């Protein structure tokens, strides 16, 4: 399969000389035709910066970027193709709508540049606006729209001219869940139907998993791990990935015995079986975590479990999140989901050995 986008060992600093502030520290990635890749990472990790570098809006220090067959940046040869020739779609985190153009004109601009006929432009723009639920707002100016409406205009603008690769910077962050779900499905369907490829920054793990074929996790200017949503979620290589990809409980555990991947722990007096993960898993106590949804609550004693009293239950709509806390100054607290509100009392919290990870 062909790579639509290839980034190789990209380095980028903000500032120069003594003030240089390295932001990207050797990022490599690729995007295949028809693929949707999510770029995840904590705030400030360089996601926007990477997108801007690919779009040609920042000049990296070293590395290469290729779009399809075309080399668009080559640090070694000092070559850099200007942004306007890269033919990408880009949705800005700040929307970057043109305040002096109407919504229609904002979206139509890319088509006008490509010299399409007026009627064709009208059709295409109306189409994409309708698809994004903006059909009636074409004549408005950006400052007359709500935040979410502005964001959708930004998406429409990037999609309308069918670029082979589109880059989206948190395109759905200002939409409500319902709209987001729809937009997500629509986006994905559109991208796949048109055979485009998309690189999408999101701060939302669930969204990343739902929309993408592959996830790149960026941490501090480096790709921490990449893979399918499932592999990222279920087999994280590092503690960072494990913690970032889901809701976790961190446990104050003491390693008692370690046999290749199997580890024996002591938590709050109880002995538990756990599995070692990651490369560094070796010496010391490491860090022990378990996903909140893997904790099974039982009113009766069960295997590989610790006993804790219930502190409180928080309503999440489709379920409750219950917090258990060790008594008498013990630094142990555990969260677990429950379908129902639990009665106060003591519970056995089962921590399945293969889900209790020691890093």
């Amino acid at each position, binding site marked *: 399969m062909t790579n639509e986008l290839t980034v190789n060992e990209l380095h980028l600093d903000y500032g120069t000389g003594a003030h240089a502030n390295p932001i990207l520290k050797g990022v490599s990635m690729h995007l295949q035709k028809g693929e949707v890749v999510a770029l995840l990472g904590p705030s400030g990790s360089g996601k926007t910066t990477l997108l*801007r570098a690919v*779009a*040609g*809006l920042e000049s990296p220090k070293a590395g290469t970027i290729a779009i399809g067959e075309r080399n668009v940046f080559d640090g070694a040869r000092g070559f*850099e*193709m*200007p*942004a*306007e*020739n*890269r*033919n*990408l*779609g*880009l949705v*800005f985190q*700040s*929307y*970057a*709508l*043109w*305040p*002096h*153009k109407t919504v229609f004109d904002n979206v139509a*601009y*890319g088509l006008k*540049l*490509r010299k399409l006929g007026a009627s064709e432009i009208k059709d295409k723009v109306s189409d994409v606006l309708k698809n994004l639920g903006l059909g009636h707002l074409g004549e408005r*100016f*950006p*400052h*007359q*729209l709500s*935040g979410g409406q*502005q964001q959708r205009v*930004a998406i429409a*603008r*990037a999609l309308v*001219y*069918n*670029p*082979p690769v589109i880059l989206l910077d948190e395109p759905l962050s200002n939409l409500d869940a319902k709209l987001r779900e729809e937009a997500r499905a629509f986006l994905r369907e559109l991208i796949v139907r048109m055979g485009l490829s998309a690189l999408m920054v999101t701060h939302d793990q669930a969204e990343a998993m739902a929309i993408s074929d592959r996830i790149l996790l960026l941490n501090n200017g480096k790709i921490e791990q990449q893979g399918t949503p499932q592999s990222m979620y279920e087999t994280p290589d590092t503690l960072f990935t494990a913690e970032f990809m889901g809701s976790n409980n961190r446990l104050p555990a003491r390693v008692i015995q370690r046999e290749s991947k199997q580890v024996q722990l002591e938590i709050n007096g109880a002995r538990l079986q756990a599995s070692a993960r990651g490369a560094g898993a070796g010496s010391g106590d490491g860090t022990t975590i378990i996903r909140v949804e893997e904790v099974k609550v039982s009113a009766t004693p069960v295997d590989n479990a610790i006993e804790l009293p219930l502190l409180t239950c928080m309503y999440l709509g489709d379920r409750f999140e219950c917090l258990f806390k060790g008594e008498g100054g013990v630094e142990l607290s555990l969260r677990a989901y429950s379908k129902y509100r639990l009665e106060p009392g003591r519970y056995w919290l089962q921590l399945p050995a293969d889900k209790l990870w020691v890093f």
Partner: protein
Amino acid sequence: MQILAHSGRPGLNWPRGVVVTLAAGVIFLPLFLIFYQSFLNAPFFMPAKELGLDAYRFIFEDPDFAVAFKNAFWLASGLAIIAVPLGGMLAFLMIRTDLPGKGFIAPLLLVPIFVSPMVMGFGYVVAMGPVGFYSLWAKDILGFIPWNIYSFTSIVVIAGLTHVPHVYLYASSALKSLGSDVEEAARVTGASPLQVMFNVSLPMITPALAYAGVLVFFLGFEVFGLVLVLGDPEGHMVLATYLYKLTNKLGTPSYHLMAAVAVCLVMVTMPLVMVQRWLLKSSNKFVSIKGKGARSKAMPLGRWKWLAFALIFGWLMFTIIMPMSGIVLRSFVQYWGEGVKLADVLTLQHFREILEQPALMRGIFNTVLIGVIGGAAAVICYCAIALAMHRKPDMITRFLDYSVLVPRAVPGLLAGLSFLWVFLFVPSWLDGMLKGIDNGVALWLSEQAIPVLRSLRSTIFALWLAYSVVWLAYGMRLISTALLQVGPELEEAARAVGATRGKVTRDVTVPLIKYGLLGAWLMVFLIFEREYSTGVYLLSPGTEVIGAMLVSLWATGSTDLVAALSFINISLVAIGLGVALRFGVKLHN
């Protein structure tokens, strides 16, 4: 999938090269002549001349120069210190708040820009001089006159107050494109409108204020008419009037001395531009047109409303109504002064005489032509130069940054003279060169092109070029300010959808600064409307402008006619402005 057309090699930017070359040419050709002249001891075109530092020796030994320089410096500083904060505040009140009476204040504000300072000064003499009618009034009530319009302090204050509108134009066009969400954030945090102004609005338009500050500082060095009228009685001298003296001091005009003074002034620009660059170091701090739309609503002043109105009214009273009423009064009376009952001497004679002036209609027509059409053409050129510097922090930009102010550092009269020299001598030198080459093309050029070049001087184009170059910094900075406010992501977004450099400029950048452009046009129009000294040597019959007519009337002592003509001129422009501001020219959305 279509691939967009490939545009040249990146890095080569022809339009920019052309703009920069032309700009540097028109700026430095006249300057070069002045610079060269300052090191000679006779006019550079005379056969008997010697290189040397005589001119500098003379002016540095002349105690008058020291006095004039010091005075000019104080005048300029005082002027900037008064005009910048007041102009900024005025703009804030006018643009951002629900100040009452904005509609009628807006055109009035601009009056001091287009009224010749000489006329303005004269208006002050009639109104507030020792026997001015307000003074006599005050004397009746108080028994003495509480002010002395001829003192240096008064001159500084008047100069400062009459330059408030220049700063206002800068500040207001910057404010117009400032998103109001930042101001709202401050208000919610608990800042009163006054605090919002000082802590958020004005700091955010620092570029506009810094540019305006440097520019009015230079206007301070240039103040001539006002000092001539108000400074003469007590003998206050500034550099501009010193230069005037220099033309006569040695009997025949001494160009080398004048040039040396001009070179000293040019040197003053350098540290100022440095300061200005330092202030605007991080341009991103001033970006305010962002990609997120923000709503805006006039800020209610609440209890400050009437205080603000009173302040503005006070300013209007002192800067516009008082001197203007002096001029108006003077235009309707035969004579005036201590012991004259004005009712007895009312007359329309002056207007009759003015309307009989043969060149009057042509003067009005030319003035409007050079103001409106010439102003628009100048703004287009300024915009091109500003764009050549936009987001390109390189050597060329720095070079232009230092260059644009330089023409204004040269006093108008001398600048005009050097333009005359350019139009006279450049064609002759070219001619000489072409003759020297001696081939077909050169001969043809020498026969066809040189006469055209020579004849340029007596067309209105020459006048326009000189005006445009001298006022370059003023128009261009207004546009740069607007450019500084455009968020980079808006341009980046256009590039990302495939717009080439030119298209980004045309479709995004320029439309976004349209208020800046309109503001620049307005200001250039007003300035060209009154400008005179630069054009003195380039005027010829048929290209007279009102400014020139005023000065020549003044010279023959017809102050009454000056008043009448000013009155006509002011009314025409004010009505035009009023109409333009009401319809069509929206300076504000």
